[in-house]
């Protein structure tokens, strides 16, 4: 690992980037900028994990979050219905109460972080642990396998529920009442949409 001073500087840099980008999410005037500010914040969190030598998880966080935010941007634009230009807007409620709660939360959490006497006294117990990724893989496939096996069905259920909730078309819309027609190309609109939209 590189000299500790460099790691310190790098950590402060990514920490500042993470928090500033996080604040920007709620400050900037454009949906796209807000979304990609959040992506930047997550990339910085991933980089911080890399600095703490959890390489695999760090890269996965970066990978997943860029992907997720790319998709998120589509939803943002879709639901906000705004043109791509920069458009000033504030869409907040209970602004003061929210700020108060956030500041209180920071004081409580931050105070806890600083005041609690942590056992190692600042030394990193993880330094020098080698083969982190391999240990993680072994844990997933051996001692913690049940956890991952439980996550699998949860993910499948999520996919099914997500499609079920959000899709306006069913297979009957695609392939006719007896499911024997070729799928329409381009895809046909849903039954309810054809009948005049909305439920």
């Amino acid at each position: 690992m590189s000299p500790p001073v460099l790691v310190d500087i790098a950590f402060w840099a990514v920490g500042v980037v993470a928090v500033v980008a996080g604040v920007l999410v709620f400050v900037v005037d454009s949906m796209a900028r807000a979304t990609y500010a959040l992506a930047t914040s997550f990339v910085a969190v991933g980089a911080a994990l890399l600095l703490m030598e959890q390489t695999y998880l760090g890269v996965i966080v970066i990978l997943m979050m860029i992907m997720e935010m790319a998709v998120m941007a589509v939803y943002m634009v879709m639901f906000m219905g705004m043109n791509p230009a920069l458009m000033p807007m504030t869409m907040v409620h209970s602004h003061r109460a929210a700020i108060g709660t956030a500041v209180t939360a920071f004081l409580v959490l931050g105070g806890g972080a600083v005041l609690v006497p942590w056992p190692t006294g600042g030394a990193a117990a993880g330094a020098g642990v080698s083969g982190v990724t391999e240990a993680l893989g072994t844990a997933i496939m051996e001692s913690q396998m049940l956890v991952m096996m439980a996550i699998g069905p949860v993910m499948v259920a999520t996919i099914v529920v997500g499609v079920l909730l959000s899709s306006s078309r069913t297979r009957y819309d695609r392939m006719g009442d007896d499911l024997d027609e070729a799928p329409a190309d381009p895809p046909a609109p849903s039954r309810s949409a054809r009948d005049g939209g909305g439920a």
Partner: protein
Amino acid sequence: MVELVGALAAAAGVTVGCVALAWVSSVAVAYGGGRGWRLALTDPVVETARLVRQRRRRTVEADVLLWRIGGWGLLPVAVLLLALVPWGGFTALPSGHGVVWANALDVAVWALVWLLGWGANSVMGLVGGYRFLALALGYELPLMFALVAPALAAGSLDLGDIAAAQDGVWFGLWMPVALLAYLIGVVGFAVHGPLAAPAGAETAGGVMAELSGPDLLVVRLGRHALLGAGAAVAVPLFLGGGAGPVLPAAAWVALKAVGLTAGLAWCAGRLPTLRVPRLLEPLWVVLLPLVVVQDLVVAIVMEVA
């Protein structure tokens, strides 16, 4: 000091290599697309000279910051991708997690291409950006599972280890489905050939519709560089890395990378652009299960052997 000079030299070398691969890709795409040899060879030079001098065109209310990030980010991603490739004993960016990094870099292209389409504040650009995300959902999952196969066979996420694990039999020979899915992914994130709909001619260039001058040049360069860099990463993954007779390892890596880039780009130039709604079904319903079966086969072979 010596370390710094070495790092700078490596960065410069990788960048030059990236531009060279982009040139190979550009020539091969043009030749495959039916241009003569002479035109295909000189086109990149002539176009570069033309675009460098062209004046910038601006659109109304463009989000210039995001637009430029999208456009100018493609080439650095390609350079980083190429930096992961081991040249015999030397790697510009050595990493024990090279496969995961390569995956993360190709996902970065999702953001960049969408931003490119978004930033211009033009309908065609936005259509192109959305098309790219739809397409990326299609090719990315098979690509991710394809990356599992060589890593599984080598028992490592390090591209150097994966290259070294292929003595005699290249992974590409007994993992053809994974290789195919990977190459489709490369063509996809380089926005070329059958997967070029996001920059399709029928939408006046889609994400590239409003670009001009140096901005257009750097996006074209970036797309070709991504194709070349993606092909170069396939060399340690599937084509035995530096393995080969007589020549040194680095030369073999370079030869294979150039050859694969040229072949892939030629195919991309030959093939027509496919419509996006038609692609998701074959990619997910046919290719994805095949790639998963390929991973299973690799796992069983490694367990038995």
